[in-house]
């Protein structure tokens, strides 16, 4: 047996210019990142302060960095599809089918698993512990493992560009097409192992967040005083814990089919592909709520802060979130009304799906009533929120249409479906994450993002979105199927050209975000956030310094109300200096999590290429790492009261110098909180 398994020199992508340049860009990108680190002589910093860190804030930032890199990669795929379809009327375009199929498969896989999921985990990691007044997540080390497993999965998708090919089975990987009989190469294996490895990470992330919210809240932070963002994280974590195992099982069984020649989902020998489709969507539908609920949470925070008003209908929003979480497990069959289920089954799942529109509608109205009699300040995070409110409603409408089985018979698998889910995922999920990124950026780095470029980015995103996806709705009415590499119907082409223009404008939106980041770093000295509370915030994450100290809170806050920080400011007890500080126990940095993630990456690679000895070796490394960590009784260190006092003294010196509130310069600023009997 060959020691390199299936891996040969022919696996390198020199068979096509486009594939080779994709590989070239990937390799160059990796090399240039290394070059920049070397140029800044930052290897020590990168390795010892970041890679080995198990501080939830740094892990959060690293997650978001992974997400932004993968956003670019996923967008390039989208741009390739849009340009191919814009020109491929009655001709083959520039992408052959085999390549086009990889592009749409990797676009979906990347955007869901390696853009949205890390972005979500990143924002939650960064903010949620601070919002509940905690010093860390419940399991900091497991948190780091989750990060590195997710990164390992993302790495497998990236390396598939350089060595071998990616899956052509779409991001859902439906068998029997994804079985070894029809797609024998390594593509589907790349998809499977990327999904499996990152899926394990996501399951652990869910457990971690759930336990953190249950066990690590500050004194007085009852469940009904949690900020709505934390509430959404709570429900999302429950969904993660229950949904991801289903994906892991489905993908694992498909691996067995492909690797050990089993017959769970094959055409013959007793296999049944319908089981995979059920298992996949049993994860897949909760997954879209896993993605969107925290975005709803971000919108809830942003809309209150920038309307300078309390969030309307807190209890309604909490109930709606829980209702959505529960219902999300009862609707998975609507992804395959057309698989021949009886009218009884279809109408049940259709009805359950339309019911989800009720709590979602409640949320939209509650946000609108938060704005009612508020004073809106149009900063970029708020712009994304307002754009979401209007655009998402259209996505909800088309979602209800697709939930009607008879309509779904017509519209399923058409671009109407594509338009629908992009209409909820871009304005709903992605705008939420971008709003969160721009809202909490000062909390992560201690300076504000440039507002002008943020505003530009918003307008490009939203105009680009409408241009790119409204034509796809129309194309659905023309019967255009998804995943068409070329077509012969002339009426489709004008719409596809408009959609390609839309994608171009979205590209400008991404460029504006990049420029915003660069400009903001360059001008950071003029946009420093010295108070830790740049937006006159309402929840506890604004009580910490920006960036927060390793321990977040020198003294755990005493919570007395919803909008805990606002309440403290109103009562005049914010920024109070404690009598004395105490020692704080914090976890030590460790490389073990990164070693486990790195081994998981190599393990995945070995399994994909059938390099069995290497796979066994990697498993052994992971096992030894876990044993070593588990036997380490000295994984924490103590930050003494004196050290804490030094950090806090510096913070209070900074606070004394700082203007009271940065947002006070805005002409729409309504003022600091004033003591007042609550309504």
């Amino acid at each position, binding site marked *: 047996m060959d020691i390199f398994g299936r891996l040969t020199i022919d696996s390198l992508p020199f068979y096509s210019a486009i594939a080779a340049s994709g590989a070239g860009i990937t390799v160059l990108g990796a090399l240039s990142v290394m070059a920049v680190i070397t140029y800044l002589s930052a290897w020590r910093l990168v390795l010892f302060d970041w890679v080995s860190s198990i501080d939830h804030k740094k892990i959060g930032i690293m997650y978001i960095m992974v997400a932004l890199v993968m956003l670019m990669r996923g967008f390039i795929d989208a741009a390739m599809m849009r340009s191919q379809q814009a020109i491929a009327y009655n001709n083959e375009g520039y992408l052959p089918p085999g390549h086009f199929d990889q592009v749409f498969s990797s676009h979906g896989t990347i955007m869901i698993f390696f853009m949205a999921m890390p972005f979500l985990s990143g924002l939650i990691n960064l903010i949620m512990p601070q919002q509940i007044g905690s010093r860390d997540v419940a399991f900091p080390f497991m948190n780091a493992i989750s990060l590195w497993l997710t990164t390992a999965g993302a790495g497998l998708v990236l390396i598939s560009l350089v060595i071998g090919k990616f899956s052509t089975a*779409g991001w859902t990987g439906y068998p029997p*097409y994804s079985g070894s009989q029809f797609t024998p190469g390594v593509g589907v294996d790349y998809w499977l192992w990327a999904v499996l490895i990152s899926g394990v990470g996501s399951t652990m992330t869910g457990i971690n967040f759930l336990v953190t919210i249950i066990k690590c809240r500050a004194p007085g932070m009852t469940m009904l005083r949690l900020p709505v963002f934390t509430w959404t994280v709570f429900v999302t974590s429950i969904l993660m814990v229950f949904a991801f195992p289903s994906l892991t099982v489905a993908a694992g069984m498909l691996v067995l089919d492909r690797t050990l020649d089993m017959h769970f989902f094959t*055409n*013959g020998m007793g296999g049944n592909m*319908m089981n995979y489709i059920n298992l996949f969507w049993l994860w897949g539908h909760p997954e879209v709520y896993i993605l969107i609920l925290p975005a709803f949470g971000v919108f809830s925070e942003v809309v209150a802060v920038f*309307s*300078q008003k*309390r969030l309307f*209908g*807190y*209890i*309604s929003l909490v109930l709606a979130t829980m209702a959505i979480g529960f219902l999300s497990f009862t609707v998975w069959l609507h992804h*395959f009304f*057309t*698989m*021949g289920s*009886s*009218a009884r089954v*279809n*109408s049940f799942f259709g*009805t359950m799906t*339309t*019911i989800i529109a*009720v709590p979602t509608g409640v949320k*939209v*109205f*509650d946000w609108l*009533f938060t*704005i*009612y009699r*508020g004073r*809106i300040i*149009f900063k970029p995070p708020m712009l994304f929120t*307002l754009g979401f409110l209007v655009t998402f*409603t259209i996505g909800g*409408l088309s979602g*209800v*249409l697709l939930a009607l*089985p*008879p*309509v*779904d*018979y*017509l*519209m*399923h698998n058409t671009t109407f479906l594509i338009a629908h889910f992009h209409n909820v995922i871009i304005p709903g999920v992605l705008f939420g994450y971008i709003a969160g990124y721009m809202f909490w950026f000062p909390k992560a780095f201690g300076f504000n993002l440039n507002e002008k470029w943020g505003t530009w980015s918003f307008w490009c995103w939203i105009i680009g979105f409408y241009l790119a996806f409204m*034509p796809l709705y*129309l194309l*659905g*009415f*023309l019967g255009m*199927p998804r*995943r*068409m590499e070329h077509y012969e119907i002339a009426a489709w082409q004008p719409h596809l050209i*408009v959609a390609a223009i839309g994608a171009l404008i979205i590209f400008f939106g991404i460029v504006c975000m990049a420029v915003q980041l660069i400009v903001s770093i360059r001008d950071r000295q003029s946009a420093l956030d010295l108070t830790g509370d740049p937006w006159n915030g309402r929840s506890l994450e604004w009580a910490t310094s920006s960036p927060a100290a390793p321990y977040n809170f020198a003294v755990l806050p005493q919570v007395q109300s919803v909008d805990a920080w606002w309440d403290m400011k109103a009562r005049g007890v914010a920024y109070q200096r404690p009598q004395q500080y105490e020692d704080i126990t914090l976890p030590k940095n460790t490389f073990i999590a990164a070693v486990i993630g790195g081994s998981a990456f190599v393990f995945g690679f070995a399994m994909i290429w059938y390099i069995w000895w290497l796979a066994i070796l990697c498993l052994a490394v992971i096992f030894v790492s876990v044993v070593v960590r588990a036997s380490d009784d000295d994984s924490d260190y103590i930050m003494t009261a004196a050290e804490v006092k030094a950090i806090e003294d510096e913070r209070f010196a900074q606070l004394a110098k700082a203007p009271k509130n940065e947002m006070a310069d805005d*002409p729409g600023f*309504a003022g600091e909180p004033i003591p*007042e009997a*609550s*309504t």
Partner: protein
Amino acid sequence: MIVRQAIAYRSLALVIGAALLCGGCSVIDGPVLDPKGPITLAERDLLFKAVAIMMVVIIPVFVMAALFFWRYRGTNRNAKYTPNLAYYWPVEILVWGVPAAIIIWLGIHLWHDTYKLDPYNEIDPSVKQLQVQAIAQDWKWLFVYPEQNIAVVNELVFPAGQPLSIRITSDTVMNSLVIPALAGQIYAMAGMETRLNVLANEPGKFWGRNMQYSGTGFADQQFRAIATTEEDFDAWVDKVKAASGTLDASTYEALAKPSQKVPVTYYSGVEPNLFDSIIAKYSHGDTDRMPATAAHAAPAAEPAAEAAE
């Protein structure tokens, strides 16, 4: 310079405008909004009904959004500002009640229409149906007419006004059979049988295809669906009968191999029980897979539907 810019903008606007206009017209004539059969017409009407009822919430959202974003902009100091307004029970009742009422109304229609428009339902039991068996292959559709003992690749011909009952299976990966103007889609899966009932109001030429991505030949996996008059159909059957080739086991083997852009091909005879043998090839006599005992075979249980039978 400015003039040139203005011209550039104007021509851009013209191009986009023209694109939208011609796009808009074509959408109205598209298969979904301009259906040619009673089933798709009923499906479209449900779509319209649902859009209309949902406007009850959609329009208020748009109006409130526009109004609130403008009126409560921070710089407008004339607008009322109540920073602690966080609960008002009539609003809560409205925001839960109105969407719930709409969903109840919609749910009733959904339930009723899902039974009524179940693709397995015979469209008109009083009329003799035309039986067709559709077999998905990489990357083409094979239609077998068991009563006429003929088979056709990539062309489905049937008389307008006579219900067409299609039994569907796949001899490859999952496919999905659709004729957008006449019938919604249903998946084709190996070792299993699904059904689709089709009726065209008038003679006409339509297109149908596989909607479920199935590999490199997917884009070209389409066929012509031709609804004819009774006489034309008989003439067409005679034409197929006159074709030289027949579809026996070995020709079938050759045909089933992956191939793209296969031209319309006629077979004047078909191996008996071809369709069932393709299913049996994968199901090994597993009766759960057979139509008689499969989940769907339970008759539609809605009282109205039963009364009609």
